[in-house]
C-alpha cells in the first residue's frame, strides 16, 4: 500500500525562499529595459541584436513585450494611453508613428542625437521622412524596399526567361501571363498580389508625380486596371478568396503556386529561414521592383521601421543607449547578417547581406537591392491614419469587384477630400 507523503514544509519554504531571493538579487544590480515588439518568434534579428547589446553591457538586460503583428499598433496605442512605462518602442509603420507623435507619447530625440553626435547622414535621407517640425521621435533601423521575388523552377518549367533588374510593369504583366498554367488546385499563377492596398497602389506613385495623400486618385487607374485584368484572367489569385481565407503570401510562394511575388525586402530573411527548416525548397531569385515606362530602374517604394523611447519610461538614458546601438552601424551589421535591409546601408553592410548563406547567388539578385530612388510608402501626415483606412476600404471594394475601378477611385477622391477638409 502506497501512502502519500507530503514534502516536509521546511523544504518547501527553503525552496520558495531561494527562488524568491535568486530573483531579487538578479534584478537588484541590473537595469531591466522593457521593449515592445511584434511577432518576436518570427523576427530573426531581434535576439541576435539584443544578445550583442547585452554582451557589451552586461549590467543591462532587455525583456520583451510581444504583441501579435496584426493588432500591434492598436494594442500598443492603448497600452501607452493607459500609462504603460515600457522603455523602448518599436515603431512599425508611419500611421502608427504619426499617431504616437500626435499624442506626445514618444520622447523627442534631437537633443540626445546632438549631445551624442549621432551621424544622421549615415541614414541616407531616411530620417528626413520621419522628421516632424525639426524634431525626430524615432531612429530608423530597417528601411525596407519593394522588390520582385520569383520562383526559378516555375520559370524553367514554363520555358520563360527570368525577370531582370530592368523590367517595366507592362513587361512584367506579359511575363506573368506567359508563366501561368494549369487548372483548379494545380494552377500556377504568374504573379501574386497580397490583399494589402500597397501591392496595387505603390507602382502608381513610383514616378513621383502624385503623392499618395492627394485630392484626386484618378492617376491610379492604369495599375488598378492592370491588376483587375490579371485577376479576371486568373494570372493572379482572386482577392476575395485570399481575404476570406486569410491566406498569407509566404505560403503560396513556398508551395510553388505563384511564379512571381512583388513584396518588401523583409521577406528575404523569411525565405532563407524557411529553406533552412525545409518548408521551402524551390530555387528563387530577386530582381528590382518593376517600374513604369520612363522611370529609371531601381526606383521603388519603401517603408521605414524605427525604434523610439517611450516618454513615460523611467530609464530614458538607458533606453536611448540601446536604441542608438540597435539603429546604429553595429546594429546594421547584425541586421544584415540575418538577412534584413538596415537603414544604414554602406558597401560593407550590403556585402554582408548578399554573402549570407541562402541568399540567391546569381548576379541579378546580388544587384537587386541597390536602388536609385526610394519613395516612402506612406508619408507623414496628420491624418494619415484615417486616410489609409479610406484607401483600404475602397481598395477592398474595387478588388472584390463590388465597384468598378472608376467608381472606386471616384469614391476615394470624394472621401479623402472630405476627410482632409475636416478640422
Amino acid at each position, binding site marked *: 500500500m502506497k501512502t502519500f507523503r507530503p514534502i516536509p514544509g521546511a523544504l518547501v519554504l527553503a525552496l520558495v525562499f531561494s527562488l524568491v531571493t535568486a530573483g531579487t538579487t538578479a534584478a537588484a544590480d541590473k537595469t531591466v529595459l522593457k521593449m515592445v515588439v511584434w511577432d518576436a518568434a518570427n523576427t530573426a534579428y531581434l535576439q541576435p541584436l539584443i544578445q550583442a547589446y547585452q554582451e557589451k553591457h552586461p549590467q543591462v538586460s532587455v525583456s520583451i513585450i510581444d504583441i501579435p503583428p496584426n493588432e500591434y499598433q492598436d494594442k500598443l496605442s492603448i497600452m*501607452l*494611453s493607459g500609462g504603460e512605462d515600457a522603455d523602448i518602442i518599436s515603431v512599425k509603420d508611419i500611421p502608427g508613428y504619426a499617431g504616437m507623435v*500626435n499624442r506626445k507619447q514618444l520622447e523627442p530625440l534631437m537633443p540626445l542625437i546632438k549631445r551624442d553626435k549621432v551621424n544622421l547622414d549615415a541614414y541616407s535621407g531616411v530620417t528626413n521622412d520621419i522628421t516632424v517640425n525639426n524634431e525626430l521621435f524615432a531612429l530608423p533601423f530597417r528601411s525596407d524596399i519593394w522588390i520582385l521575388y520569383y520562383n526559378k523552377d516555375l520559370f524553367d518549367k514554363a520555358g520563360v526567361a527570368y525577370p531582370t533588374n530592368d523590367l517595366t510593369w507592362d513587361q512584367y504583366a506579359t511575363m506573368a501571363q506567359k508563366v501561368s498554367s494549369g487548372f483548379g488546385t494545380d494552377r500556377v499563377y504568374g504573379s501574386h498580389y497580397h490583399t494589402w492596398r500597397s501591392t496595387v497602389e505603390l507602382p502608381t506613385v513610383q514616378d513621383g508625380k502624385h503623392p499618395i495623400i492627394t485630392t484626386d486618385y484618378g492617376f491610379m487607374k492604369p495599375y488598378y486596371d492592370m491588376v483587375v485584368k490579371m485577376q479576371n484572367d486568373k494570372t493572379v489569385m482572386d482577392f476575395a*478568396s485570399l*481575404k*476570406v481565407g*486569410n491566406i498569407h503570401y509566404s505560403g503560396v510562394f513556398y508551395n510553388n503556386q505563384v511564379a512571381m511575388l512583388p513584396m518588401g525586402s523583409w521577406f528575404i530573411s523569411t525565405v532563407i529561414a524557411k529553406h533552412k527548416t525545409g518548408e521551402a525548397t524551390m530555387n528563387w531569385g530577386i530582381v528590382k521592383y518593376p517600374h513604369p515606362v520612363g522611370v529609371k530602374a531601381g526606383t521603388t517604394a519603401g517603408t521605414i521601421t524605427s525604434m523610439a523611447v517611450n516618454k513615460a519610461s523611467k530609464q530614458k538614458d538607458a533606453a536611448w543607449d540601446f536604441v542608438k546601438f540597435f539603429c546604429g552601424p553595429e546594429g546594421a551589421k547584425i541586421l544584415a547578417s540575418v538577412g534584413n535591409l538596415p537603414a544604414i546601408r554602406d558597401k560593407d553592410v550590403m556585402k554582408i547581406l548578399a554573402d549570407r548563406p541562402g541568399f540567391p547567388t546569381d548576379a541579378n539578385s546580388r544587384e537587386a537591392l541597390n536602388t536609385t530612388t526610394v519613395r516612402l510608402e506612406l508619408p507623414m501626415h496628420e491624418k494619415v491614419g484615417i486616410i489609409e483606412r479610406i484607401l483600404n476600404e*475602397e481598395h477592398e*471594394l474595387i478588388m472584390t469587384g*463590388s465597384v468598378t475601378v472608376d467608381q472606386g477611385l471616384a469614391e476615394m477622391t470624394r472621401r479623402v477630400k472630405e476627410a482632409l477638409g475636416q478640422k
Partner: protein
Amino acid sequence: MRNRHLLKNDLIAYSFLLPNFLGFLIFTLVPIGFSFVLALMEWDGANEIKFVGWDNFLALPGDETFRISLVNTLYYVVGVVPLTLVCSLGLAVLLNGKLRGRNVFRSILFFPYVASLVAVAVIWNMIFHPTMGPVNFLLYSLGVQKLPGWSASVDWAMPTVILASIWKGTGYFMIIYLAALQGVPKYLYEAAEIDGANAWKKFRKITVPMLTPATFFVVMMLTINSFKVFDLIYVMTGGGPGRATNVLVYAIYNAAFIQFQFGYSSAIAIVLFVIVLAVTLVQFRMERKWVSYV
C-alpha cells in the same frame, strides 16, 4: 427587537451583494458615467481634454460612416431577431416531442452557443469561401451560374453574418423555450384533443400563447444583443468589404481605439444606448397587449 433582526438580515444580504456590486461599480457603472461626460469632450487619450459641448453629437448626422453603421445595425437586428426566434421555437417544439435521440440533438444544437466565437467565425468563412467553400461548390454543381461571394461581397456579407449569428444563437434560446414548454400543462392539450383540434391548432391556440412570457424574454435579449454585435463581425468581415458590415459598435471601436477620438466614440455609444433604451421601453409598453401570465 424585531427591527434589529430585520436590519441584520438586510446587512447580511447586502454583504453578499457587495462583491458583485463593487465589481459592477468599478468596471461598468463608473465607465458608463464617464462616457456620458466624455461625449461632450474632445480627447485623444493623451493630450488635454477639451470641452466641446454638443459638437460630437452635431457631427454625427454628417458622418457618412456613422449613417452606414446605423443602417447596417438595423439591417442586422431585423435579420437576426425574427429568424432566431422562429428557429429556436421551431426546434424546441420539435425536440419537446417524443423523438428518438432527442438529447443528442439538443446537445448538438446547443453546441454552437458554447463554441468559441472566433473558431465559429473562421469555420463559417471557410464554408462560405467564394472559390473553395463547400456551399459554393454545391451551388455550382446545382448549376448556379453567378456564385455569390458571401462574406467577400457587398450584397452578401451581411446575410452571411446574419446566418452565422442565427446558427450560433439558436441553441441558447431553444433551451429557454424547452424549459418554458415543460410548464405548459398537459390537460390543455388533452382538452383540445377532445374538442377535435389538430396539431397546428393546438400549436397556435395553446403553445404560442402559453409561451408568450418566454417569447417576451427571448425578443428582449435578442434585440439588445443584436444591437451590440461586434465580435462576430470583427472576425468574419472586419466591417467589410468596404463598409458593408460596419455596425455601430464597430464604429465605436474604430473611433476610440483606431482614431483615438474618445469623445466622438462616446457620443456614438450614447446614441446606441438611447436607441436600445427606446426599443426596450416600447417592448415593455407592448408587453401588456400580448404577453399572458396565466
